[in-house]
């Protein structure tokens, strides 16, 4: 079913909307959650929470890209759950690895105006991504949005792991330069 049809079901408050949403985007959401949480039960819970959030938010929200909308909710829920569960110490899993990798890009900074900083940074990342080749962008987001392992990205994109790593390294380097130019780091 097309996204517009699913959204119509949500607007009509039809419970079938959840079923169709799960059929179309369930795997994607579960993959993101599982990559972050590394726990099947937590991931399923996270995906179910996503459906619940969508049910509550649509309407009034009318997402232009439903896949992106649910993916973002799942990711944020998973990150939140991860942080709750690993409050004391960063543990294993792709999330921790991705944090380590991005440490290269951003280092540390003393800025404290958190919300404005986050907005600025998100806008900058959007602008940066807009200027990348689609293939590079997808590899970058598979790694740092969906937290996919390198070999999975390689398998999915039909490239060698070496090429994927090289692409990620190059994009990280360029992102760092971009953020420096924007005086965000």
């Amino acid at each position, binding site marked *: 079913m097309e996204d517009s049809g699913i959204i119509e079901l949500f607007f009509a408050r039809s419970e079938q909307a959840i079923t169709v949403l799960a059929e179309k985007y369930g795997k994607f959401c579960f993959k993101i959650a599982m990559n972050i949480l590394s726990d099947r039960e937590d991931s399923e819970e996270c995906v179910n929470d996503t459906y619940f959030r969508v049910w509550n938010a649509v309407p009034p929200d009318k997402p232009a890209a439903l896949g992106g909308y649910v993916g*973002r909710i799942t990711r944020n829920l998973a*990150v939140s759950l991860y942080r709750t569960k690993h409050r004391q110490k960063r543990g294993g899993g792709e999330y921790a690895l991705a944090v380590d990798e991005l440490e290269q*890009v951003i280092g540390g900074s003393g800025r404290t105006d958190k919300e404005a900083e*986050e907005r600025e940074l998100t806008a900058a*990342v959007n602008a940066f991504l807009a200027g990348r080749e689609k293939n590079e962008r997808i590899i970058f987001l598979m790694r740092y949005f969906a937290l996919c392992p390198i070999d999975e990205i390689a398998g999915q994109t*039909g490239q060698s792991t*070496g090429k994927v790593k090289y692409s990620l*390294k190059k994009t990280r380097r360029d992102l760092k330069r971009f953020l420096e130019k924007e005086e965000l780091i």
Partner: protein
Amino acid sequence: MNSLKLLECIGNIDEAYIAELEKAVSAPACPVRKSPYKIASWLCAAAACLLCAFIGTHFLPAEEGIEKNGETTVTETASPLTPSESDISQLPGVNGVPVTPGTPDVSDTSVTASPLTSAVPDILEHPVAIEVPVTPETPATSVIPAIPVTTAISETSEKPKTPPEPYHIPEGGGGDEMSAFNDPVQFILLGIDGALCGDRDVDGWFKAKREANPIPDDLSGHANLYSFIHDFDIPREEAEAAMEYYINSDDPQLRFSTEIFDLIYSENTAELGRLYANAHTIAKGEKLYTPRWLYYHTPEEWTAAGITPDDVESRLHLYENIPFAPEGREYFGELISEFLGRQVILDDPYADWVERDVPVVEAVPEDIAEDVSDEIVEEIEETDIYP
């Protein structure tokens, strides 16, 4: 701000990008398309192995010696095993002269019965049979030899010195790293799918292509999908059926449209080149001038080909990113400087990341190394793209 914050901000990016990601993640995994150069280098390596095996089994004597015309040769024995003295003393030796252990008769070199010595002239007379499958475009060894192009371009070339090796390929590398240097077209026209190869002599075709023109300047001279289809005279229906998987694929790197086939089969190479030349290549009508072509031609020849300073100037940032060997980078910079009439130094963007010829881990300064997780160092090491 820290990396955790950045990772969280990435979670709030534009939904359009996430939707794009969702499509990529949900699509069936892509089959790995091998670069034609990688395929060719594998085939060449396999051919070399077979040849070695052939020589070994047919021309090198076995442990017991080879009997020929009723005689057993010992002096040419290539067995790794050491026979006992009694074994040796029982052998008749060369031309019937007994062999004494420890005192090999080296004075008599006129052994006529040795299959090895008889094979040598044959091999020497037919050097093609043991040709090492290394050409400028198919790096099968760790170092690309100096390109024998002086004869190919000597009539017009007035370069004061021989171009150095433009690049090195790391051990086990297939040469894909230098695609930007060598290949004139985008990936979509570069790979030749196995389904399209079928039973055709792809290896021979690659070899002939390379030998005929090591520095091609058009689509026909280069090994690519266009030249493959035309050289083998493949009907359009067959090509479309073989490439069905890629037709209108969601992946822009793999997607084939009927328009590409239209251009290929209309032989409109100028339009094909205009649309599908890669960013490093300067397209001039039917001519495609790759960095490789520029590297092996003089600035005067660039001008004669209609290449303008703007063409080169606008690609400097791309040329910088080519993983040249240091001497190749310097040489190419000199050529460009001469052409543009100003000093151009092609900075090595990777120089501050990894020092060449130094193991990656050692190349990372200690103070930085502390901040770099083992995982990252491992990733860089495994990438192995730096010589």
